[in-house]
Every structure is written in C-alpha cells, then in structure tokens.
C-alpha cells in the first residue's frame, strides 16, 4: 500500500505540493486530478523518487522510501509522451526492464505484453514508425513488463487526439484491471479520470482539496471550484440554489453545482424561464436561459424543439445532475 503523509515538494524553495496525505490500497487505481500547474506531476515525480520531498513521508507497506533511489523502488513510470527509447525496437523497449533483471523467457513475455496492448507483431518496429496511440501502448507494455508494485501514469493519454483518447482510456481501464495493477495516474481530464480510475484525488495549487471514491467525489464536490473543475457548468448560490433545489424536491442549501443538462425543456416543468440564446449540437439544443427567481442558467432541449431567443419555456430539473456543495460561498461562481 502506498501512503503519503503530509508530503510537500518545493522547487528552489517555492512549495509546489503542500502537505498532501493520501493512501492507495493494493489493486486500486487512483487518479490525481488537477488543472495544469497544480503540482500533480510533481507529486507523481516525488512518488517515483525523481524529486526529493521537502517534507512529510512517502512509504510503501510502511517502509519509508526517502532514501530509496528511483530504480530500487520497484515502481514503473509512464510519461505523457511515452519516452520510448528511440534507438531500441519496440520489443527491446518492452523487454528493457526484463533484461536489466536478467529475466528468462523475455521474448515470450514481450509477446504476451504486445498482445495485452493489442500490438501483436510490432516487436521489430522502431518507435519512430509508430503513431501516437501505438507509442503510448508500447510505453504501457514496457511499464507493465516487470509487474511493478505500483504503476505511475503521468497524463498517459493527453498527448493523443480526442477519439483515440477515449478508446485508449477504456483499454487502459481493462488492462489495469486484467493485470491487477496498483496505479497512480495524474491527469487534468476528468473524463479520462472517470474512465480509468476508481478513486479520485483533486489537487489545486499544490493542496489536496478532496479525495475519495470516484462516484462519491463526483456526487459531492468539496467546493465550487472543484465542482467546476469536475465538469459542472455552474454553481448557483443563495436563493438561486434554493429555487433550483426546491424545483427538484430537495431541501434548500447554500450552493448547488449544476451540470449543463440538469435543466431540460419540458412542457410540465416546474421552473419558468426566458430563452436568451440557443445553439444546436448534433445531440441536443443547448440553451442559455434566464430562469425566474434563479437568474442565468444553462439548459438543454431535444432537437425537435428549438426555442428561439425571447421565447418562454418551462424547465424540468434532473436531480441526479445536481450536486449540493456543503461549503457555502462560491467566489468564482461566474466561471463556467
């Protein structure tokens, strides 16, 4: 089990990660989610032993890792852009760690791994001839080769384009489960985190804001900024929050995070609103509406209904797309 207790990391005396405490049980996949510059990659590098922690304790099964150099930690790190060794073939890249350990049956193991990542027959190719997605698969296979006790993934999919990212995220989930690997992944993409991980830690400005089971974090973001970062479109406060919650049949709260699709146009909806603007997407019509007693909000309509600006509509509230935020004030509620 990986344990971080009050870990801080500083560059040239400037703290980048502050007082992070986390536990990752064996077999778990934890995503550290944070905007760029939040210190999440630094945290990962500290766990890998590539950056010294300036405070706190990183330990594995109770053993302090402070004096254990990177290559003796038994972890494997997969970089954002793979960092394949360009002078080695795919097969030799994957077998790299095996050869270091003078393992036997390297070829068979490499073949197995290639099959696992769906690249059977690629052993003799050079990395330069691979596509971005293929390179990441090779990097993953290389990292998995010696069955590391912990796999560290640094934005493994963000260098890829959207469609490929989605597909590979699914593959990554399947491969990690199949191998039973304990993994720590950092990413700024919440969709990627949801697809791959089962636990989520949100890091902002070097501070751990929230950590827990992924669905729990999703349902109850710790604060408005976290909610917005998790993909909620707006955070409503005060009377506006009360009005929306009332329409959903919930008790009032200080603030509530609303997904874009939480309000939808329905003939018998409990809220009344005036359409300000409308934009059609392939799946639905996205509206910005002025809700009576709430103010500006987002809403959706099905494609067969296309309300124009100024039109009065009624809106239904989907309670599963709301998240009540316990801490009251939303300083950046206007962000979306």
């Amino acid at each position: 089990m990986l344990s971080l207790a009050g870990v801080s990391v500083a560059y040239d005396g400037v703290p980048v990660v502050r007082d992070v405490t986390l536990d990752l049980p064996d077999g778990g996949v934890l995503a550290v989610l944070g905007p760029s510059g939040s210190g999440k990659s630094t945290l990962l590098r500290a766990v890998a032993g590539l950056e010294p922690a300036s405070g706190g304790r990183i330990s594995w099964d109770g053993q302090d890792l402070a004096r254990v150099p990177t290559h003796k930690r038994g972890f494997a790190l997969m970089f954002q852009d793979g960092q394949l060794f360009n002078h080695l073939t795919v097969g030799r890249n994957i077998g790299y760690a095996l050869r270091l350990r003078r393992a036997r049956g390297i070829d068979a193991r490499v073949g197995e791994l290639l099959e696992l990542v769906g690249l059977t027959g690629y052993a003799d190719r050079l990395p330069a001839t691979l596509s971005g997605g293929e390179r990441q698969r090779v990097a993953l296979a290389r990292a998995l080769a010696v069955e590391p006790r912990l796999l560290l993934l640094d934005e493994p999919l963000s260098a890829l384009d959207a469609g490929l990212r989605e597909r590979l995220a699914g593959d990554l989930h399947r491969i990690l489960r199949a191998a039973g690997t304990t993994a720590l992944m950092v990413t700024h993409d919440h969709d990627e985190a949801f697809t791959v991980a089962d636990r989520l830690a949100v890091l902002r400005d070097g501070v751990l804001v929230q950590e827990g089971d992924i669905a729990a974090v999703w349902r109850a973001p710790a604060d408005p900024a976290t909610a917005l970062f998790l993909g909620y479109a707006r955070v409503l406060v005060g009377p506006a929050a009360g009005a929306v919650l009332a329409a959903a049949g919930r008790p009032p709260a200080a603030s509530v995070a609303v997904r874009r699709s939480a309000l939808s146009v329905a003939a018998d909806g409990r809220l009344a609103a005036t359409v300000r603007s409308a934009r059609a997407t392939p799946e639905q019509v996205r509206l910005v509406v002025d809700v009576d007693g709430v103010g500006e909000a987002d809403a959706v309509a099905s494609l067969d209904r296309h309300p124009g600006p100024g039109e009065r509509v009624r809106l239904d509230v989907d309670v599963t797309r709301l998240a009540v935020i316990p801490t009251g004030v939303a300083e950046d509620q206007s962000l979306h």
Partner: protein
Amino acid sequence: MRRTAALLALALGPVLVLGVFFVLPVSGMLARGLWPDGTFDPGAVAEVLTRPRVHRVLWFTAWSAGAATLVSVALGLPAAYALHRLAFPLRRVIRAALLVPFVLPTVVVGVAFKQLLGESGPLGFLGLDGTPVAIVLGLAFFNVSVVIRVVGSAWESLDVRPAEAAAALGAGPVQVFRTVTLPALRPAIVSAASVVFLFCAAGFGVVLTLGGLRYSTVETEIYLLTTNLLDLQAAAALSILQLVVVSVLLVISGRLRAVPDPGVSRVLARPRRPRPGDVPVLLATGVVLLFVGLPVLTLVAGSLQVDGAWSLGNYRALGSTGDQQALLVPVTEALGFSLRTAVDATWMSLLMGVLVATVVTRRSRTRAERRVRSALDGFFMLPLGVSAVTVGFGFLITLDSPPLDLRDSPLLVPIAQALVALPLVIRTLAPVLHGIDDRQRQAAASLGAGPLRTVLTVDLPVVWKPLLAAAGFAFAVSLGEFGATSFLARDDQPTVPVVIFRLIGHPGAMNYGMALAASVVLAAATALVMLLVERLRVPSVGAF
C-alpha cells in the same frame, strides 16, 4: 531554376575566393609533386610512400593522434557532464576557461609544455621532455576543450526523461548511462572524436616545438621537406595522402553528424546540485582543470622570472629585438601586425561565412538544389583538414605571377587566416540559421515585409549574437594561426606566433624569456576574446 541560380550567385563570391586562395595553391603544390619536370610522374610519389622515414612519420601521426584523441575523450567526458549538467559555484567561469586552450596559439602551447616538462620545469623529474608522451599531452591539451564543448552541448540539451524512464524501470545509474545516455550521446562523441583526431593528425605548432626533428607528423614533415630539404615531390606526396585521408574522415564525420538519432528531443536540462555520487566526476573535472591550468601557470611563472629572480624584465624586453638581433622588429610591433591582420581576417571570414551559411541553410525545394547546397557545405569545410602548411606553401608558388602576384600584398596573410577560420565561422552560424523556421520568414513576407525587411525582422535578432561570437572566434583563431602564416608573413612584418617561434629557435636566455612573455601576452589576448565570446552564450560556438 531561378532559385538555384540565385543560390549560385550568392555563393559565387566565396566560391571564387576559396577557388583562388585555396584550391589553386593546394593544386599548385600538388602539381609540383606530380609533374616534377612538366611530365606526369606518379611513380615518384609512390616511391616516396615506400621510404622508411615516411612510414615512421605515418605511423607516428596515426598513433599519436589516436592516443591524443583517446586522452581527450577520456578527460573530456566527465568534465562535459559536470560542466553542463551539474550546478556548482564558478561553473560558467570554468567552462569559459576550458574553452580557451582550443584557440591558444599552438606555438604558445608548445612553449608552455616545454616550460612545464623541461629539465628545470616543475614536472621535469618525469623526464618527459622531448618524448612522444609530451606531444600526445600537448595535443590533448588543445582538444579536451573540443570534446567538452561538443559533447557538453549535446549533453546539456539531452532530454532527462528517457533516463528517468529507465530509472523508473529499475535501471541503476551505471545501467542508465550505458543503455540510454551513451546511445543518445554517441553521435556527439563520435563526431567530437573524429574532429579531434583530424586536428591532432594535422597538429603542427605543438609537434614542431615539442618534437623537434626527432618526432615528426605528416604536417611537420611536409614543412621540413619543403623548407629545409626542398624535396617538393615528397612534400606533395604527403600532401596528397593527407588530403585523401582528411576527405575520407570529413565524409565519415559528416555522415555521423547527418544521422543523429532523429527522435532525440532537445530540451535544455536544468543543472542540478551535485550529489555524493557525483564526486568521482567532479574529481575528474578537477584533474582536467589541473591538466589545462598547470602548463599555463608554469608559462606565466616562467615569463615573470629573469635569472631565477622575479622580474618584469621579459615584458620590458618585448620592446626590443632580442639578444643578438634575433628579430627584425620588436615584439610590440609584431603585436600590432597581429592585431591588424586579425581584424582583416575577421571581416573576411565573416563576410564569406555569412554568405555560405545563408546559402547552405535555406530550405531546398528540389533534389538538385539540395545537392548543390550539401556540396557547397562540404567544399567550405575543406580548409578544416587540409594542411595549413600546404596552403601556405601553395600560396608562395602559385600566387607569384600576374595577374595574381600577391606575394607582397599585405592582404595575403589575412586571406590565408580567414580561410583557416572560415569553417569555424560557418559551423557557428549555420546551426543558428538552420534553427530559424522558414515559416517565420514566410509569415513576415505575407505581412508585407520585403526580403531585406524579412532579414531584419526575422534573421537578425536571432543571428546577431552568434555573429559576434563567430567574429570573436575568427579573431582568436587568426591571432594564433601559425602554420600558414609561418610561410607567408614577411620577415619585416611578422605576427606574434611567428616571432615566438623565432625567439625559441635563437640562442640566448633573454630570447627564451621574451618568448615566454610574448606567449603570455598572446594567450591573454586570445583568452580575453574567448571569454567575451563565452559571455554571449552561443551554444554553437566550437561545435563542429
């Protein structure tokens, strides 16, 4: 078609200059050997190559250059790492100091090693004076800086992440170095080693001052054959051999440079604080510093002593012509000639260098265009490897009749020195110009900038620093040039290296003291220029 024509027009000037002042003299020299009496007689050349002395010379050249290359690489690698990847106090100063030996005048280095290893020198007890070991050390002294420079800049820009990836996969420091770092550095190391071998094999001043007549490399042998023995045929034979070997080496090193691992990403790594594991590397760097510093310190100390007592007498004597009229003009006057010559050589090599670098780095649109460019590139690298002695002597025998009667022209020496400096200028400028994305120029043009305006807004801001650095580099090289200058400088207008060589050849204690003092002055001047260049922080200076 029009582009190719414009290309050739731009290149025409430098090509003509190189043709007249390099190809013509060299081929004139070769013709003397191959057509001794007006008839083609290659048999005589072949005969020369069977002489036992020639065999000894060839063997000595090969093994001394090989040994010096090994020593340079072995000493240079740890220093390259320490100076480019570790952060410690005085790092920049040490880096600049270690760049100086490369431009130190060869004669000065010879004198410094004589002073260090001679009977009365601090290391005299080793008995190395006049041995091949001294020559190898002298050659390595120069070229350590080349290795540090070339490998260091590659190391500095080496992405650390593959090494981190290897470490994260369980590779220890030694394994990381062997399996990841070394393969990535190999092109730089091989290219540095081949250039160093080239420089060592063409070593002239050092070998002449340290080896005397006993140990001779191809280069000094050509000198002895032409000036002392007047055996032009043998000299020409050796020149041909040298030309062939050098061309082959240049082609090989060009190949090695042309296919660096295309995937190696270039990111400037942040130097980190030394760790306990870095102690051996830092110690090795200290050894290199000692190796470079000791001869220089001995030289300075020697120049400040007259008859065993501290004195500035040697420096005061620089205003005189030495004991027994060793010189025709005082050293101070020679210094004036040297500086004036260096200024001329600098603008000439810069002018040609800018034209050539521009021509060879513009993007080629057709295969023919690319071929023309790479041929030009190779053509202008030739002076790097061709014996300066051959060029110098060739000047004398081919430029002596109208319309090219230039023997008494004051521009002859600067032109020869400009040619020697030209490859270094091109190598400094070309990577910088190459690094400018052509689309920047296209963007400027699409916004309405004319060709001149484009150069001013896109090229100049990037290039002015390297241009200054190249100027300094050319200036320093010209100050120290000895091989060609020793032939061409007129007796009443010598440069300082020529004067130094004459002084150590003349008997008289005062003359030797003056040679030391003049060496210090010359070394200080070149070092000053190089320190200024280093302050400009142009990475391609001294990269080959």
